[in-house]
């Protein structure tokens, strides 16, 4: 049973109302909102945590695998310098792109909107 079904089962009549009896805990809009909130929080946090993880990996590699980081790279001396520059680019991209708040194509966001649309 998807969130859409849960939402539809709240309606007095129409598709899915009979399913309300099958489903024990009464589903509410708050379930969807909670799922949305978790989803957005996850969406916002994942890239930042990835940046932190990547940076810590870079620090560990630099300090304990110095040979790997000093392998030559044409034009930029070594792997370490190249990875450092790439992180600058990555941080800038993360900063300017920012978390998206577009709910088209978002499964939970779509479920919230759909029942309302179908009434029209």
């Amino acid at each position, binding site marked *: 049973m998807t969130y859409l079904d849960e939402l539809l089962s709240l309606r007095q009549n129409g598709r899915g109302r009979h399913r309300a009896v099958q489903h024990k805990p009464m589903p509410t809009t708050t379930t969807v909102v909670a799922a949305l909130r978790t989803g957005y929080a996850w969406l916002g946090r994942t890239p930042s945590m990835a940046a932190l993880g990547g*940076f810590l990996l870079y620090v560990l590699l630099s300090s304990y695998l110095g040979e790997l980081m*000093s392998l030559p790279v044409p034009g930029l*001396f070594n792997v370490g310098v190249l990875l450092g520059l790439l992180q*600058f680019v990555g*941080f800038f991209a993360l*900063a300017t792109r920012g*978390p998206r708040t577009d709910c088209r194509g978002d499964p939970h966001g779509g479920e919230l909107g759909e029942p309302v649309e179908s009434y029209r």
Partner: protein
Amino acid sequence: MTNSNSAQTAALVIFSVLATLAMLLCILAGSEPDDLADFYTGYRTLTPPRNGLAIAGDYVSAATVLSTSGIVALSGYDGVVLVLSTVLSLLLLMRLLAEPLRNAGKFTMGDVLARRMPGRAVRGAACAVTLVASLPFLLVQLSVAGSLLTFILGISADGAKAACICVVGALMIGYAAVGGMKGTALVQIIKMVMLFGASLAITLLVLSRFHWSPTALLSAAREGSGAGDAYLRQGLEFGPSARGRLDFLSAQISVVLGAACLPHVTMRVHSGADASAVRRSTSWAVGSTVVIALFVTVMGTAAAALVGNQMITANDPQGSTSLMLLSRALGADYPSLGEAVLFASIGGAIFMTLLTSVAGLTLAAATSVAHDLFAGTVRRGQATERGELAVARWTILGIGLVAIVLAALVRNWNLQVLIATAFCIGASAVAPALVYSLFWKGFTRAGLLCTLLGGTACVVLLMTFSSAVSGTPHALFPTHDFHWFPLQTTGIVSVPVGFLSGWLGSRVRWRTLVGALREADVPSG
């Protein structure tokens, strides 16, 4: 090597004009004597780009720009990693904490923490941690201001440094007390634009001098640093030993988690108008910080290439004058006028950076004293707005005077350890407290107090007996040796201690524990 007279005169004129202009702005943007929200947040009227630049301005302090460029110039690779960790710190704060912080808080860190756990103890602890983190940082900034101004103006007398500290300190008290949050924000924006312009000009000049080839710049830096291939590898700052590697790791952890959690940065988040405005201003803040950080990296490398290790360390062992030396070396290509203009423009940008960083820090510390300690703890929330604002302004004066006197007294000490202390407190006490109270439902008041006090106590204890305070030639007390903690920053130990004490403090059932202790005590007593 002394500065030419024309460059010094130009610098002095520019400094006076800038200081007056900033003061005028603060007076124009100043608030009414009984308007608390205006003083603390400027009514959240700043647009997202401006608010973002103000956050970045507060974050990119004078000590950050000068000491980081010095470390890049002297240690190369290690310095670049430090620049990256500084940027990442702001990125994490802005992406993970800014929105919840803005929604949870009103003016200060105490507001954020006391929202879920109201009480005088929480507000008192928040204020104490704010002061312990801000005052050392303020001292460093004032001390840097003194040495840099004497260097730019070319005065070498011992009393001159103290006089420069007093002048900068007096200006700082004026800006913070008159302008409040909005006035200092406007000055921060001007400073960011000036810093951006001056460093862009120097970066372009450097790159054109090396025919736009990073390889040429890096080879020249490798030669100039005198370290050879080690300049482009980790290990120059703390040494290649196992302890040096651990120190490097510890320093990066402290900076990543602590630099952006300092109260004067988190306080700026509260002046965003709403959640979406905060989101947009964070993009501006981090974006501009990344650009400035990239410029600082290029300028530091160019200082190693064009000025050379020997000249930099002869002027300042930590390399904090390397930017000024670089601008002079570049200006030598364009005799008299070009030299003066370059020197004065980077000097002006750094002067504004110095003024705004000290004003922002004083404002954050004084706001916390007035709002958390006076209104929240002493008066238990019963203070009038006019009374609280008066206390805030008098506290700015008090904190400013204390900082000026202390900075003037210790002007010849190596205060780098105080920056590390501030970052470590940010990482070990403030960061765990904010993360737990914003994201963990099981966090309790006892846990919060354990995090704030335990984390801070751990940092202060370990830092006092670290090798950055005594026992090494570059330590705070080079002639004494009472160290037993082998590292220079405490992050690798104190961050886990801070997080763990918050978790333990929340898990332990204090009432049962106290009851059991009393019961055990009754029969014996």
